[in-house]
């Protein structure tokens, strides 16, 4: 009896041990594969945008509502985001998976939910590959959707810069400063449009000159001691703000005045040429009878779409620029002391053909008829709205808002 019990115990324990060994052997083979499969299933969509990623870790943070999830590749190949945007055209929100590598470039954008009327999902996906935080292109015909996607991608970039814990390059820092220094220098899609320019006459300390494509100013990088400064120079040739590359405002610090002077010197001749061109155009448009009638008024304390102000007979002439559908539009308003709009004209820029400034349906005369005789207080969005020309109307509104603000500051002060 005792012997039987002992045998039972030994046999059962031995079987358990053998089975246990077998299981541990199999488990050592299958466990890594299972783990890989599971993470692949959970992160399959993320792997599409970051194909070299090993495993994804959640990044927890206070995200804007358009950023649903942020994942960090433990292998260090980059970050993946689940983002969403809403377009005016559909009820179903756009959902996208976005991959951003460590250099801040977009590896891939995949649209996972696209319910728009036009089947352009693939165009969007192609549009963003290799781009960085500044995105300028638009898919033709689906402007609102493009903008919705861009907004979502921008939100992802904000999160990326905040949580990715990656040192931004000087170029990225500079691009962020564009918006701080010159918030109005946006093109029709809302992106900051700058291009690098060369200047033979620039002092050696000026290392880079970036001209607003709108022509409302310049942003320059200037070396001062061991610091790289970013200086905003407005359309009047005045250096009005100084930042260091990390975005600290040093405008009030007198020790950087020399750098400001260098920045102003770099562009001195260009402003004169710009002003001469504007005045010549005002003569052509009949706003003034001769160049001598326009006296330059200084409006250089801020960045604005208002690129020039002149005292002319009958009031102040304000010239402002914004980007419309066909390119830049330059408008000129003459406003008298009573706040009445005496004249309105569209000034063409020399490099843009006049007929491109407005769509074929819109004539300058329509704006002029709507505006002339109105007072500053009378001009509403409806006055500026001309059907069929949304972008140009928007640009006109932007110009008007800045002109109105400029008029409120200057009216009464300029004698």
């Amino acid at each position, binding site marked *: 009896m005792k012997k*039987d019990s002992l*045998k*039972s115990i030994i*046999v*059962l324990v031995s*079987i*358990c041990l053998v*089975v246990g060994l*077998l*299981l541990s052997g*199999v*488990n050592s*083979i*299958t*466990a890594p*594969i*299972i783990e890989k*499969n599971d993470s692949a*299933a959970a992160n399959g969509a993320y792997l599409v945008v970051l194909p070299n990623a090993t495993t994804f870790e959640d990044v927890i943070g206070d995200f804007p509502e358009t950023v649903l999830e942020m994942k960090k590749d433990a292998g260090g190949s980059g970050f993946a985001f689940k983002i969403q945007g809403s377009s005016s055209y559909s009820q179903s929100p756009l959902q996208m998976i976005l991959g951003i590598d460590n250099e801040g470039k977009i590896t891939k954008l995949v649209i996972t939910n696209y319910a728009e009327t036009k089947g352009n999902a693939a165009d969007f996906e192609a549009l963003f590959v290799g781009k960085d935080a500044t995105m300028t292109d638009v898919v033709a015909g689906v402007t609102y959707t493009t903008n919705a996607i861009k907004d979502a991608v921008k939100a992802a970039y904000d999160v990326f810069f905040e949580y990715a814990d990656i040192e931004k390059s000087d170029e990225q820092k500079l691009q962020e400063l564009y918006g701080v220094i010159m918030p109005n220098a946006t093109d029709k899609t809302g992106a900051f449009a700058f291009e690098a320019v060369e200047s033979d006459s620039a002092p050696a300390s000026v290392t880079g000159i970036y001209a607003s494509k709108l022509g409302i100013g310049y942003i320059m990088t200037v070396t001062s001691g061991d610091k790289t400064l970013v200086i905003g120079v407005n359309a009047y040739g005045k250096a009005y703000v100084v930042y260091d590359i990390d975005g600290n405002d040093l405008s009030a610090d007198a020790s950087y005045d020399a750098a400001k002077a260098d920045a102003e010197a770099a562009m001195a001749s260009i402003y004169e040429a710009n002003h001469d061109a504007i005045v010549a155009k005002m003569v052509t448009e009949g706003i003034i009878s001769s160049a001598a009638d326009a006296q330059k008024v200084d409006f250089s304390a801020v960045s604005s779409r208002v690129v020039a102000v002149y005292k002319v007979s009958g009031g102040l002439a304000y010239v402002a620029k914004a980007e419309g559908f066909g390119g830049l539009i330059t408008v000129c308003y003459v406003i008298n002391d009573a706040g009445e709009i005496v004249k309105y004209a569209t000034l063409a820029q020399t490099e843009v053909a006049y007929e491109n400034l407005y769509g074929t349906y819109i004539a300058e005369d329509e704006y002029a008829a709507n505006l002339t005789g109105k007072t500053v207080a009378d001009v509403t969005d409806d006055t500026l709205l001309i059907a069929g020309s949304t972008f140009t109307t928007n640009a006109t509104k932007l110009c008007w808002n800045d002109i109105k603000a400029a008029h409120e500051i200057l009216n009464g002060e300029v004698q």
Partner: protein
Amino acid sequence: MNNTQTLLKGIIKENPVLVLLLGTCPTLAVTSDVKSAVGMAAAAAIVLILSNLAISLLRNIIPDKVRIPCYIVVIAGFVTVVEMLMHAFFPEIYSALGIFLSLIVVNCIILGRAEMFASKNGVVASIMDGIGMAIGFAIALVAMATIREVFGAGAFFGIEIPFLKDYTIPILTSAPGGFFVFGLLIAIVNKFLSKKRKPKAEFGCEGCPSANSCNKTDCEKEAE
């Protein structure tokens, strides 16, 4: 009884599902589509054959008193091995089978064959028995799954069938439909086998499909 007969009896005459009515739970649960049914049949076959083999080998070592725990440990071991392998290499089938894969441990077919056959027969015969039973189980599962998927979902192996997909009988893919089909198949097999069956009066132990593997003298001994 030779090995061929041992193998063949599991397919119709002693079909584990439709005649012995064992393993009903997984049969009903995983036969809503053919893919899962094939996966389940394969997993059960591996466990059945391996456990029959192992138990047959150990039949003289395992003491009578602890035989059931020993069988369960062996079966659970094989089930877990199959489960881990499927999870690693066939994750799709693994997730389709879900909990029923683990529940092969308590599948009556496997414990039943261990207790009724493998513990009393040689290694080769036990393997043959395992293969036969596995084929019988597979035939029953696939037959049920085919009927349920073709008429319930208008597809076969996940591929849509033209025409039928517009006239599906959705209840077949849910649990009640499973019972309907199960009952139907049992009835058909019963009809098919009834001619060979002995008259009811003489039913007794001899009329039982499991009579061959049942050592009835054991029961009688205990009854005494």
